[in-house]
């Protein structure tokens, strides 16, 4: 148990020791998004009665940074430790693969939460609603971050180089997040795009998280909660199996 806690502590230390990059960086991006989209698209209809674009956008921007940073933490930590060889200290330590996996996962969720709080505090002044449903906020925050943290672990385990990680970020993570309804109501899509959006787990995460602030959602929040829960279990089940078998980690 102590080894497990130590690994979480060390991972948190790792990203906090470069907080300018890991916490201020996402805040700066969110401020830019808020400035560009929040100002320029302020007149766009949210299709939600009584909800302004800023009230709609801010929770989406917060969740976007949570998802990206939880992914970034676990993936870069694993790849970096493979690159420097220091992963063997974790593999040789008296910790079970389940504890190793859980420690990396929890540390990535913690980074997601810290970044989420920092971003919300930084951009709430542009017209955010105060939190109204804490259960929805915490549920989608934690399970949402656990999905991208788990994806980050899988990618970190499977990739050998940083450019492979960059490729996954550019071609999978960013499109999924941009099409998750951060900047617009996904109802505005039609046809194939509508279907693609409805299969995108990030859409339910953003939608449910936003519900916690504005009490409006694009889709059924309960359905979204179940979808996200199942997806989180699936992703982390795969991630844990890879860790246990030592794929691309053990020889």
């Amino acid at each position, binding site marked *: 148990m102590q*080894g497990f806690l130590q690994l979480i502590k060390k991972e948190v230390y790792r990203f906090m020791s470069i907080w300018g990059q890991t916490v201020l960086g996402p805040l700066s991006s969110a401020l830019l998004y808020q400035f560009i989209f929040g100002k320029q698209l302020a007149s766009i209809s949210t299709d939600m009665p009584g909800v302004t674009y800023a009230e709609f956008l801010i929770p989406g921007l917060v969740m976007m940074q949570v998802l990206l940073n939880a992914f970034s933490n676990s993936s870069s930590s694993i790849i970096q430790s493979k690159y420097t*060889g220091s992963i063997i*200290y974790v593999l040789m330590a*008296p*910790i079970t693969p389940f504890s190793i996996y859980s420690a990396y996962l929890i540390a990535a969720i913690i980074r997601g939460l810290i970044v989420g709080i920092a971003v919300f505090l930084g951009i709430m002044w542009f017209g955010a609603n105060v939190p109204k449903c804490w259960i929805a906020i915490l549920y989608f925050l934690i399970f949402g971050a656990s999905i991208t943290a788990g994806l980050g672990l899988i990618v970190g385990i499977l990739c050998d180089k940083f450019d492979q990680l960059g490729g996954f970020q550019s071609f999978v993570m960013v499109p999924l997040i941009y099409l998750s309804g951060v900047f617009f109501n996904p109802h505005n899509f039609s046809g194939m795009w509508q279907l693609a959006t409805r299969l995108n787990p990030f859409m339910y995460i953003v939608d449910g998280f936003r519900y916690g602030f504005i009490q409006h959602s694009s889709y059924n929040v309960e359905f979204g909660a179940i979808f996200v829960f199942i997806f989180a279990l699936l992703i982390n089940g795969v991630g844990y199996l890879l860790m246990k078998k030592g794929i691309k980690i053990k*020889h």
Partner: protein
Amino acid sequence: MYALEINHVVKRYGSFTALNDINFKIEAGEFVGLLGVNGAGKTSLISSIAGINNFEGEIKVAGYNVISEVVKSKQSLGVVPQELAFDPFLTVYQALKFQSGLYGVKNNKEWLFEVIERMHLTDKINSNTRTLSGGMKRRLMVAQALVHKPPVIILDEPTTGVDVEIRQSLWGFIAQLHKSGHTILLTTHYLEEVEKLCNKIIMIDKGKIISQSTKENLIAECSTLPTTLEIETQDAKFIDSLEHLILKKDGSSFTLKLENNEQLLDILNQFRDAGIILENINIKKPSLEDIFIHFIHR
């Protein structure tokens, strides 16, 4: 109970078999040298013991199976891996504290400072690990393997790239750990150190054990290996009657097979009679290196 038990261990990389049915046991308190040429399978074996390799067969550390009793077996083991590995986010002291935490060890500041001092890293204690030289990183890796005072210590070429002076001091520290009851398995290219420190030697070649014996038995087993006479002379000519005794010729140096003391006198007399000036003479008993080469080429 053995400190280390290796039973029918096989390790394959695709179609290549790196370890082919390896079996040996090490008693608690032994200091064992594991010898083999590059690619013989030493590191594959050590990685399997350390839990960073998948393998077939059974390995037990301090009686604990490394697969089914992973936590207890790893708690009993400290490994210095061959490849340089460091965490670029930590200082020397932080790396050791973190390592202690992974093994569930608390309040070991005194021991950490002692290890740091013995590894000659005191002046680097607050330096980031990425700023250390290769030799310093290697010494830090030795320190990391010792934070939890494991009963079984495995050192995979721990002195590669380490200065001569510090190497001596490191060997002294390892010998002291052995005296205080730790079991040690060592691989190194410095065979004279193995000869000096180890009481048992295991030789491995092409994934198979080719010899395992106490150092004394090994030397006795190789008693047929000749004592040699090394001579150095600038005289171009060499005595024809001694040609058949030459084992090796390297420029002005000759290594002759020496069977007994009378033969030694006879050889020297022949040189004197021929007027050949000898600049250097050395009588050499078979070293561990000779024995190792003998086994590899057998």
